């Protein structure tokens, strides 16, 4: 089990902002590290595109239970937006080495404090 907890339980971030948080883990199988990624993915009519903008590694030290902090840098863009054909969703995604356990948390990256609607 993986759980992403964002600092100050925030959901919306500005471009260039540092996203901080903690990952709590209680793993079924030991993993030496947990990778936390800041990714965007598209949703809508088109074939899905996705991209990893930043990444942070939490070392578990072989332990199956515990927690670790992460820091990710939000890039300039793209902004979280919702259109008729395309939407861009930002998320924090974390997983074990073999990706047997993964967890995702949706966030918003936008200069106006909310998802843009076109």
């Amino acid at each position, binding site marked *: 089990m993986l759980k992403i907890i964002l600092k100050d339980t925030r959901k919306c971030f500005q471009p260039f902002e540092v996203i901080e948080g903690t990952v709590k883990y209680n793993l079924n199988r030991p993993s030496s590290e947990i990778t936390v990624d800041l990714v965007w993915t598209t949703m809508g009519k*088109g*074939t899905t*595109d*996705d991209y990893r903008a930043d990444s942070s590694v939490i070392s578990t030290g072989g332990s199956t239970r515990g927690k670790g902090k992460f820091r990710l840098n939000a890039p*300039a863009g*793209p*902004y979280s*937006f919702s259109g008729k054909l395309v939407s861009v969703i930002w998320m924090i995604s974390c997983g074990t080495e073999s990706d047997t356990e993964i967890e995702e948390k949706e966030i918003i990256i936008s200069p106006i404090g909310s998802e*843009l609607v076109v």
Partner: protein
Amino acid sequence: MATRRGKSDQNNQGSVWFLRLFALMWNGILVLMFVSMFSKGTIPQWPMLLFLIPFVAVGVFLIYISISPGAALGITGSKSGVPMLESQANPAGASAGQRELKPVSTPGKNLWGSLFICLFWNGIVSAFVVFIIRDWLQGKQEWGLMLFLSPFVLIGLVILYGVFHSFLALFNPRSKLTLDTNMVRPGQTVTVRWKFQGNAEAMDSLKITLQGREEAVYTRGTSTYTDKNVFITIPVIDTKSKSTIKSGHASLKIPEGTMPSFDAAHNRIIWSFHLHGEIPKWPDVQDEFLVSIFPVTPSDLKAIKYRDQDALKTLEMKESDEDKDDDEDLNAQNYFKRH
């Protein structure tokens, strides 16, 4: 096992290699056919050569898209999704300069494109038409086949008209569009300058707009489709003045809080200027110029933050003043009620 996002191969390498293999096979078979035809020592009859033109055209097209697969498969764009410009490497220096926008297509490209389609379509259809005419001259009238071919011949004629139309458009005045900045961002006011070379007096009116549209590329079966949706159209100029048509400039404000350009492999937000010059009894000038709208910079964000804070303070002050007024009104009402 679940797969995590952000790890997909955006260049669709599998499809690209399949395409290259297909191009190799197609052209290989064509070469073998030609070698076997000519090795017999007899020159093939011209209906046969006509019939082969579209297959050769497809072969050439396959070679072209194998070399440049991105555009052909509709998979372009930067991996990060944020548009890249040569100027982005040095935005501070670039922002001071002007930027001449490149048209998406030119009359020459349009002519070659329509000529290619025309050769492909009419090459196949003409082979059948030749057979029908030959039979007709020999006294055999295949009415069923003629009826069946009629719509294909009609489509061929429309495509031929398209070639003629594109040819006439070669003689149209050529437009040039320049922006006063290299880095356009939401909330920014930009000046657009246009200039025509050639017979600009032939145009009766000129309309320039800035359009924002979404594009989604998707595959159904073996075909790739692109859906488009225009979400904003900002008028720049709509004039009938001959002098303004020939050259001029106008300012426009990029809306604040709008979505900047987004350029992924299959999904895009595209901003472009559309220029429409009307020429009576002649193909109109219709050009599209792509423009990249970049995300805001950290300094812009600070400005937005401070402005929002100022706006919030003003709102709070206004609200507290209104509250005070309300309180005073209420107190006055109560006073009058009591007395």
